[in-house]
């Protein structure tokens, strides 16, 4: 069991009973549509524990308590429309694959997953380690979804959250990605293109192109995917897109982050790479063309 340490220690030193009792009340609220779970106060570094080494950070313990409760509770009548998992520590969790959780997610029209910074206590949350797990299974992304948000606090893969290469969401109209890397494998690019018939809004904040997806290796820039190719591809596929936001310097809250470049050497170390003026100019030209197509579509609607 991947979360075995939690099973041993999860409530050691903490009284989770009152918390779990409140969760039981939440799940019986007859008119509840939106649930927002903010697992941390912010995405800053985890504070080192001043207690025993075995203790897990309390915010992670509560995250575990919540998922365990949702996974074990069988009979809640909720029909949630919107779920936001904010400052989520991306840890593998068997309860996220459980039938009760899949049922809970099956009615969503909006799903936002915002992962937080790595926790030193759990090395698998370090983005410099190759991911060995997926947070959610394919079934977690319901066909009812109209809006999907995958935001990371540090550059990570989208496939770590869910197997997006296998998913088609027939109603998906709004997609927002943050610090999610693109790559030559093109899983993110294909996911976006696959929804070309329904996507009306696409937002990309601080999403770099990883020249390599192998640990500690950098491929020569001239053999990798370029943004010019991505923009050209998406321009051809996103037939109903009316709102396009791409930011290379600011996150979704408007905060500046110069630590993520247009190209990075590989998806783990994420060192910024300068591919040269010609490549950058070709990217800019293709993006402007893409932007022009989107603007002409949105102006056609307004006039």
């Amino acid at each position, binding site marked *: 069991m991947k979360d075995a340490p939690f099973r041993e220690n999860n409530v*050691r*030193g*903490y*009284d989770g009973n*009152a*918390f779990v*009792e*409140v969760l039981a*009340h*939440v799940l*019986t*609220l*007859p*008119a*509840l*549509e*939106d*649930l*927002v*779970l*903010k*697992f*941390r*106060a912010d995405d800053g570094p985890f504070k080192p524990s001043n*207690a*025993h080494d075995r*203790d897990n950070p*309390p*915010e992670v*313990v*509560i995250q575990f308590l*919540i998922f365990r409760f949702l996974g074990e509770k069988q009979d809640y009548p909720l029909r949630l429309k919107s779920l936001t998992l904010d*400052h989520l520590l991306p840890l593998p969790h068997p309860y996220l694959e459980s039938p009760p959780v899949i049922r809970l997610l099956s009615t969503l029209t909006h799903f936002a997953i915002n992962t937080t910074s790595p926790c030193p206590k759990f090395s698998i949350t370090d983005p410099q380690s190759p991911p060995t797990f997926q947070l959610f299974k394919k079934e977690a992304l319901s066909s009812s979804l109209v809006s999907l948000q995958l935001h990371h606090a540090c550059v990570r893969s989208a496939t770590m959250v869910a197997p997006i290469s296998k998913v088609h969401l027939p109603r998906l109209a709004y997609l927002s990605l943050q610090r999610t890397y693109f790559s030559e494998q093109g899983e993110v690019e294909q996911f976006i293109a696959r929804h070309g018939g329904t996507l009306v809004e696409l937002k990309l904040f601080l999403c770099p192109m990883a020249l390599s997806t192998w640990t500690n290796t950098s491929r020569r820039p001239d053999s990798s995917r370029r943004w010019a190719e991505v923009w050209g591809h998406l321009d051809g596929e996103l037939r109903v897109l009316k709102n396009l936001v791409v930011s290379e310097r600011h996150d979704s809250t408007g905060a500046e982050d110069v630590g993520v470049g247009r190209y990075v050497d590989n998806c783990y170390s994420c060192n910024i790479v300068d591919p040269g003026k010609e490549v950058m100019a070709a990217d800019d030209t293709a993006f402007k063309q893409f932007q022009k197509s989107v603007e002409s579509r949105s102006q056609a609607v307004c006039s």
Partner: protein
Amino acid sequence: MVYFPPELLGAVVAEVHSQSDLLQLRATNSTLNALATPLAFRSIQFRNTDKSLERFKRLAQYPKTAELIREVVYQYEEAGSSKCDGRFVDRT
């Protein structure tokens, strides 16, 4: 105030976003109570503190308020922060 059309009062109350203001409006008279109550309990937040958990439980157990709650926000609060009363403070 008594002669204000209810539609106009409703539009004014709909612009009040602070929960404490809405709760005060509820206490003004029966008309404002009827208009402000659904908005006051539309979104409820709870934290990992004794006081917050107890307050949420009271609201959720009372059917008239429970049926008004459309959104629930859980916000983690660090032990030792000004608002935290110690429910999750390590006792080992």
